[in-house]
């Protein structure tokens, strides 16, 4: 199969532009088809991770509306505080931002888990070290592996195609790096370069290309990695390439639509990583930016499960961000913080509140929410309770699991 002439290949298949049209379905009927929580899942389980880059503001996503926390929120957030029809109540104590009506439906069906107070113990407010920790899944940000990569290392022995066990739809992310096998990455398809559409690859060239990419004795490490990268690209291109959309739409919705297509096509991928196209680092102009970011998220993730249809029961989707944001309003937005709210959703998920909500009347010395739940606990639960890999091998022993699945 020729990976470099996707347009011709797709024409041969009679592939139309974009994802297949999906019959409308209600969430209730989707969940009825998937079965109750804990029901036997037919087919391999898939985890979809949604990266919200920049530090999503948990307090402007899941809002405390009662008691001392509710009062402290209103006082701390000033003009930014949500009230009235900018809130969708979950229960007496918390509400979702009004831009998340789809997630609210999932909550009402009991399949949206809101995990409170998520963070790690590093105490700095830097995107880079926090991202490094989020990706590494351990406290040491200088780790050369990511937790998805280490999970892939452990899934690889039982897999006929280890290179495809984890796949990013938005380019390479360090979370994919494993010690033995790493996840692969693709970006939205763009095969017009030099103004010339892809020409069919010359079979004589491709045979030598494989020879060139084979490991060579005496290669210094980076040279060896460069060869391996070409081999990996060849394989991923041949397998995943035909399903990538034409036109280069990088949005979260488009990435998730491609994930749904790949799941339906029967790819052996167990972990997908997708990236929200927006910047959650709302130091400024949060009042305008956050609603748009959340609307996009809500539409994309709910649309994704709709598209999955009968396969939805095999999929758990979780959001993550490198940190939350500060309790106080800086006059235009909020600055880097600590503890955050993460979502985990899917037909198999035990919905409801997980983890203790941080106290807004007992902030740390920077004015940040104190963590109550470690990121490792969330990730270890996804790895252990959903993917069936022993979390001790990925995160070390003794990480408490949550009752999410």
């Amino acid at each position: 199969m020729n990976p470099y002439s996707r347009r011709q290949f797709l024409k041969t298949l009679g592939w139309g532009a974009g994802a297949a049209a999906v019959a409308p379905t209600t969430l209730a009927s989707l969940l009825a088809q998937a079965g109750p929580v804990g029901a036997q899942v037919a087919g391999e389980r898939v985890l979809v991770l949604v990266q919200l880059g920049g530090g999503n503001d948990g307090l402007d996503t899941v809002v405390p509306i009662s008691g001392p926390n509710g009062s402290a929120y209103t006082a701390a957030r000033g003009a930014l505080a949500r009230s009235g029809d900018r809130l969708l109540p979950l229960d007496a104590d918390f509400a979702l931002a009004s831009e998340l009506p789809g997630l609210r439906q999932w909550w009402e069906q009991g399949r949206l888990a809101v995990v409170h107070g998520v963070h790690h113990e590093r105490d700095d407010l830097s995107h880079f070290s926090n991202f490094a920790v989020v990706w590494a899944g351990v406290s040491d940000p200088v780790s050369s592996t990511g937790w998805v990569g280490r999970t892939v290392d452990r899934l690889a022995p039982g897999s006929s195609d280890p290179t495809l066990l984890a796949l990013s739809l938005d380019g390479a992310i360090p979370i994919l790096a494993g010690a033995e096998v790493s996840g692969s990455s693709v970006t939205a398809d763009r095969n017009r370069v030099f103004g010339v559409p892809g020409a069919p690859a010359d079979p004589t060239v491709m045979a030598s290309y494989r020879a060139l990419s084979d490991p060579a004795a005496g290669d210094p490490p980076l040279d060896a990695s460069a060869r391996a990268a070409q081999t990996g690209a060849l394989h991923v291109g041949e397998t995943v390439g035909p399903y990538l959309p034409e036109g280069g739409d990088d949005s979260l919705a488009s990435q998730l639509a491609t994930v749904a297509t790949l799941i339906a096509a029967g790819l052996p991928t167990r972990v997908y990583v997708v990236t929200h196209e927006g910047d959650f680092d709302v130091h400024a102009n949060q009042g305008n930016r956050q609603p748009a970011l959340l609307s996009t998220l809500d539409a994309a993730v709910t649309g994704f499960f709709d598209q999955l249809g009968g396969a939805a029961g095999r999929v758990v989707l979780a959001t993550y961000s490198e940190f939350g944001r500060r309790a106080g309003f800086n006059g235009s937005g909020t600055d880097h913080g600590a503890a955050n709210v993460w979502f985990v959703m899917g037909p198999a998920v035990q919905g409801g509140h997980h983890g203790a909500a941080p106290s807004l009347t007992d902030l740390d010395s920077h004015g940040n929410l104190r963590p109550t739940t470690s990121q490792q606990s969330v990730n270890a639960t996804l790895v252990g309770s959903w993917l069936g890999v022993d979390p001790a091998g990925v995160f070390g022993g003794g990480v408490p699991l949550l009752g999410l699945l």
Partner: protein
Amino acid sequence: MAIAATHVNVAHLLRRAAFGGLPEEIEAGVQAGVEATVERLLDWSLSPPDTDHPPLPDPREQLADPGGSRELTLELHRWWVNRMLTSPAPALEKLTLFWHGHFATSLLKVRVHAAMVNQNQLFRRAGTGSFPELTKAVSRDPAMMYWLDLLQSRAGALNENWARELLELFTMGQNNGYTQADVTAAARAFTGYRLDPANGYAFVFVPRFHDGGTKTFLGVTGALTGDDVIDIVMARPETPRFVASRVWFRYASATPPAGVLDDLTAAFAARLDVTDLLRALFTHPGFYADAVRHGLVGQPTESFVRLIRGLDVPPDVWRPAVIGIGFLGQVLFAPPNVGGWGHNRTWLATSVAGARAILSRQLGVWAAAAVQGGHPLATHLAGLLGQPDLFLQTLFGRLGAVEVSAGTADALRGYLADSAGQAAPRRLAGAIHLAATAPEVVLQ
């Protein structure tokens, strides 16, 4: 201790300090010696004026209509890539690219192309001399001020973004001798920095937004201003060491040997002069070690420029294709975040490798047509196909690889044997497709 003027060493110097040397340039460097080649590279006076950029819209227009002009962004790519290809001082373009990644600022938030060009010109103008002066100029750069929210910050409503990244990414290194309290104190010192729309959005200091109170920053107490903060930072020993390590990271390899970093730090700390640092780097024996020569994967811009230059691709062909750099994962004027672009493993991800394979194939397709069009280099290469070893030596030499591994050579010889019955243009296309993805060419 003189560095041996071998082809390997001179080719390495030209690839790292600039964008690679053509065979005649490497030969000239071998004849002149490494020190003389370094001095020529560091002769900034050879750089042509950089006011010949494409016409830019008025900032007010762009701020009013932030739809963004993709075509203008591509035109700016073409402008800068053209300088990398043709400037008699390519090391200055490489240094400008370094500062662009170091003080990383993105058009995607700044939205005003004129501001990004202005910043690019600042790096070229002020990036070769005093690092303290460069940093002060960057603190007043309109694109940077907008990018790190300095325009938002005022007494009583601090925005700490600029202060944090100044310490963490630009000068001292993360958590390397400062605390969160210092970040807050620095943020207070930098309040009052604004831009004046009535004066072409030039920097203006607005006292009523400034926190003129007493602050303590890195142990120094006073009514500190932004320039005071920078002076204090520049007096810290962490600063020259961190900046030297970043220069090593982009020019040499992931991690410097400790002794080498000590030497470079000492050379830089003497005057905090950037040219001093580069000279020390390019004349240090450690820079020419095997691990360093095999220590960097080419950034997409570097790879693109080396391929275009090596194959003598004409402007009417490479200009439309400059978007290839973005496909490889690097959009000039738009680094992914304030930490700049990725490094090494980033450029070996499957998505990048796939894009590189497509770009390489398309270069081959061009070359085949170029033979038929009478392009001198393409015709010359096609004519060498009957002598496989000479052909490979010439092709890889043009692509900047003086040494070729057995693994790569065997694969290419295998291709030439298998394709022996095919027409020359087609064989040339295949050879270029393969050679451009070989590790010897992918590594910088």
